[in-house]
């Protein structure tokens, strides 16, 4: 069973932006798309470990700030022709509150 952890209100994540959740195993980037979908990925680009939380969000994609790799927010997969994948985490939003499954 997933262990749902409350993160905070959706409003605390900027639209088309991201906030970081610090964990003992490294940072997790929590993204909020324009349609209010919330996604969570390991805050580390599969290319050179750039902090994805600092990238520009567009659609359900984030562009890494270091070398412009485009990472799919839902799957963590790099967009072709780049190859690589970063860890993803389940999220849910209930009554305006974001939960993360760890």
């Amino acid at each position, binding site marked *: 069973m997933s262990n749902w*952890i409350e*993160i*905070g209100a959706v409003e*605390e*994540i*900027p*639209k*088309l*932006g991201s*906030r*970081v*959740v*610090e*964990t*003992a195993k490294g*940072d997790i980037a*929590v993204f909020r*798309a*324009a349609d209010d979908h919330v996604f969570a990925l390991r805050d580390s680009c599969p290319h*050179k*470990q*750039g*902090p994805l939380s*600092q*990238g*520009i*969000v*567009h*659609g359900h*994609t984030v*562009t890494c*700030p*270091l*070398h*412009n790799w*485009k990472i799919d927010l839902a799957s963590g997969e790099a967009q072709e*022709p780049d190859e690589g994948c970063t860890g993803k985490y389940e999220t849910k939003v209930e009554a305006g509150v974001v939960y993360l499954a*760890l």
Partner: protein
Amino acid sequence: MKEKLVLVGNGMAGVRTIEELLKIAPDMYDITVFGAEPYGNYNRILLSPVLAGDKTIDDIMLNTLDWYEENNIKLHVGKTVVDVDRKGRKVIADDGTEETYDRLLLATGSNPFIIPVPGHGLPGVIGFRDIKDVDTMLGTAKTKTHAVVIGGGLLGLEAANGLKIQGMDVTVVHLTDTLMERQMDDVSGRMLQQSLEEKGLQFLMATQTEAILGDDCVKAVRFKDGLEISADIVVMAAGIRPNIELAEKIGLHCERGIVVNDTMQTFDPKIYSVGECVQHRGETYGLVAPLFEQGKVCANHLAKFGIGRYEGSVTSTKLKVTGIDLFSAGDFTGDDTTEDIIMKDVANGVYKKVVLKDNKIHGAVMYGDTVDGAWYFQMLRDGTDVSDIRDHLMFGQAHLGDAGHGGENAASAMSDDMEVCGCNGVCKGDIVNAITDKGLFTLEEVKAHTKAAASCGSCTGLVEQILASTVGDYSDTPKKKAMCGCTEHTHDEVRHAIKHNELTSIPAVHEFLEWKTPDGCASCRPALNFYVLAAWPNESVDDPQSRFINERVHANIQKDGTYSVVPRMWGGVTTPNELRAIADAAEKFDAKMVKVTGGQRIDLFGIKKEDLPEIWSDLNKAGMVSGHAYGKSLRTVKTCVGEEWCRFGTQDSTGLGIKIEEMTWGSQTPHKFKIAVSGCPRNCAEATIKDFGVVCVDSGYELHVGGNGGIHVKATDLLARVATEEEAMEYCGAFMQIYREEAHYLERTAPWIERVGLSYVKEKVVEDEVGRKVLNQRFLDSQDVFKFDPWAREVADAETRKVYIPIKKIG
């Protein structure tokens, strides 16, 4: 029930059209393809490397049989369509196979022109067109010695080169004095001939074939002058003819090719046609780039989107013979109305000729060093006025020296393990492999797959050369270059729309210009944010989520995810108090390095994001503000000490630098903007490689613009000489304003001026006094909005401060 689309001709143009169609309307048609050859679609332009032994047939397959299956395309290979019943909408193949259609696409390509001399039908006389021809050549080369190639054009020379590599004695027979006379002038043609002779090819120039001799197969060739030479194989490469046999038979209007309109439709509205078989606006094309452009337009109309017109192509040519770089484009012969600029160094194997008409490039031919071919070609297609750069046009785009690839300018001379892209460590061999293995055709595709030329771009010319020598020709930039994949519009069109339709937000731009993606992308959104702000400083609101991270958090992200912090030091002048505060901050926030920058500032490295507001607060308290070292804005004004201290100083350069910095700090510009003020022509502040540079002289101030010390080292051009500080500042404001209003986002002043011409900038900023004052006033007005310390603002706002810290800490 889906409509039925039948493609006749399983070649590059036809299948590319299907691919484009599947991209935009995957489920619209049931698709059937007829191909006369027994293969999937292969890359015909790579037949030369197959002949030369550099590639195998498998290497050049573009669409394997599996591809057709995966896309539910019914493929008839080895079947030639012999008739079309246009009334019953049905195609009929030679084996009796019939397929009905709602739309028919003819892509029957071309046939080699076989000169009808006696003996032309003998076994051993072939064209150079398909895999079968290559197999025949390879087979002959194994057992026989003598090859004759008739025709010294592109195809003939590639065939000759391949046969030579396969060990045959090859004689090329050419009708005129100059090889490739449609692509080369006589000088470059002779240089080409000499290089090929050094490779062991023999030439019979100005020679006409009279007959091919032999009984049951080819034995010899006889020429009009009576000479006879032995031949075991004769390759006819005297040109190609559009294959219009089928189209003529079924009564479609044909001239030299199948006549189509701008939507690639033939005179029968149900029938479209693309590729070498087509005649469009009187032209036929034999190179791949135009065919792909046609395919894209045709797919759009087949998908019933009804937008996009094919308006013809300007083509350029390169030769795929290892070790030879040549390039030509446009009309390089010229006439009474044109001028030539020629650079010729035969001993070094370099020849360049550019033909100008009304100060625009009309054509170009190059041999040896072709790295600037793409640059000339771009200016030719764009119709760029080159009067301002005429004096160094022949030395190329980067004549002052490009950084990063060791000064290489001839890709063919490079070995496979030599580095092409110094940013991403990509070698020539990597690029060649990617092009052939992944079937790449354009610069954009090569950039995406290999990352070569994808960072600083200084090796773009080399990458284009490699692309050219690997696939022959290519299309790099369409004439009208869209901002990004999210829109069809160019930067200029977008800027114009924002200004004239009072679009004051990104969503307004998206809606008005019908953006294709909901939020844009990481490339267009920052551009739109800037364009909106630049056009409407008072009416628009900055969108932080559309800014690159550095501008969002007012610091520079480093590779480990920490930030660097640079406080402003006006004119590069500081005080013990400021230095003390910087030292304290460095210790308090555990800066990993303290570094003096090139722009006369101090940079604190290794600062954690969550500490940023606090370090700013400390620096603010000591009277310092953000140095905007992260911004697309004024970076620094670098100065020397000037007349106050220096025995050579002519004016107060430090004082003027500070005044200019106080005027311009915080400004929003298309890209970073650097200024320097030097106190005398010794130019210690290096003002002549800045975006705006002032060199003080005894009589006043020289104002220089458009310099750059980066990838393309570029010295400034002199804009004007003025007598007073006030004038210098007015010119500075006006120049920054016109750059801000007219340059493309992320375009530095140097390439911007190269694009619009220095004369244009002088006309607006120097010659038009009223215009200059208006521009300067608009600059000052916008500075009322932009001139604030973002550090202090963030520190004061508890809400925005929150985004600097983690939303939650677990464990």
